[in-house]
């Protein structure tokens, strides 16, 4: 049993099996082939020999969500694609993990203000485990994100503590928590209030001409 020597504590009970499972799982994260925009080029570089994601056991890019347990959302997600991203996420087997790669998937990025068709962050669609910012992120940054996923897997204790990671879906609503005077049950009315308030503050901030 040379391959387990020194990797587990000495008392072989349930916890050590769990560690073994976690170790096996973190060492063979299979990502899904899923490039949406320019970040995918960077993801391909990570898969290539120079950065070599295979060193971390995550080099087997699967062509189907059913065989994958890591979804690297690489690139801009638009409104038309959002439902497809969600469906692909639902088709992945548990446990599944999501890396939001790049500024667009983290929160809209350069399309935040004027992108009429861009989802302002993929966490509005699927729960995200690790955010890797950058436009696009360096390949090392994506590897770092993968290592954080591996940390998360290493901490999982399915057998003793039940399902440890239970994210509400979606993890954030995307709406800003507003003071009651600016909020309303009707989103259109609330927006009107906010616009009026923004105009008021802008007028206050504008210096009067001498």
């Amino acid at each position: 049993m040379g391959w387990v020597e020194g990797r587990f504590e000495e008392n072989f009970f349930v916890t050590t099996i769990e560690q073994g499972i976690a170790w096996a799982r973190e060492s063979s994260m299979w990502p899904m082939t899923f490039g949406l925009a320019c970040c995918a080029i960077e993801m391909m570089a990570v898969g290539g020999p120079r950065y070599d994601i295979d060193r971390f056991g995550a080099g087997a890019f699967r062509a189907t969500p059913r065989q994958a347990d890591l979804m690297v959302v690489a690139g801009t997600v638009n409104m038309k694609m959002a439902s497809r991203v969600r469906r692909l996420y639902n088709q992945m087997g548990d446990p599944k993990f999501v890396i939001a790669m790049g500024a667009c998937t983290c929160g809209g990025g350069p399309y935040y203000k004027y992108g009429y068709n861009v989802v302002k962050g993929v966490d509005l669609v699927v729960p995200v485990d690790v955010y890797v910012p950058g436009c696009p992120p360096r390949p090392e940054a994506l590897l770092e994100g993968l290592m954080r996923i591996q940390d998360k897997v290493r901490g999982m204790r399915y057998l003793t503590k039940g399902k440890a990671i239970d994210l509400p879906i979606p993890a954030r609503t995307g709406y800003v928590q507003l003071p009651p005077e600016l909020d309303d049950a009707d989103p259109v009315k609330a927006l009107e209030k906010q616009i009026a308030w923004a105009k008021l503050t802008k007028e206050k901030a504008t210096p009067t001409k001498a």
Partner: protein
Amino acid sequence: MTGAEIIAVLETECGSKIKSKSPEAIDPFVVVEPGDLLAVCGVLRDFPRLQFDMLNCITGADYLELDPKKVAKAGFEPHMEVVYHFSSFDQKHRFVVKVMLPRWKDNQPGALPEVPSLTTLFPAADWLEREVFDLSGVNFIGHPDLRRLLLADDWVGHPLRKDYEFPLEYHGIRGR
């Protein structure tokens, strides 16, 4: 042929249909009425010395100044333009045809302005016109399959209109 020569040929072939011309522009163009578009483009395609056998692109341009302070200096009335770029492989020349439209048909907001479809003359116009319909909101009469090309089928509005308002929410996803 130069732009001036092309315009001269067009004026002899269909003189009354040319509303205005500008041969000295970098891309020489003529402006025609929407009703005369098919006739003029037919001449462009079929006249032996013109032979415009390729429709390069169709552009929808929305002329609207939203800032009330800049309206006086804008230099144009609010309107839509549809711009057609043609080129010829044999004659190695290019030409532009423009159609001026109101922003809304009969000045009723929501009613798309209408222009005849070029798909009968140039099959390449199919997807180009679908894109212009999708983003700029121009109704191409006679198009065989006028659906949105880029945005989702249930999208509301035409985003490249100057007065387009972003959706607050799209299928439960926050829009802005």
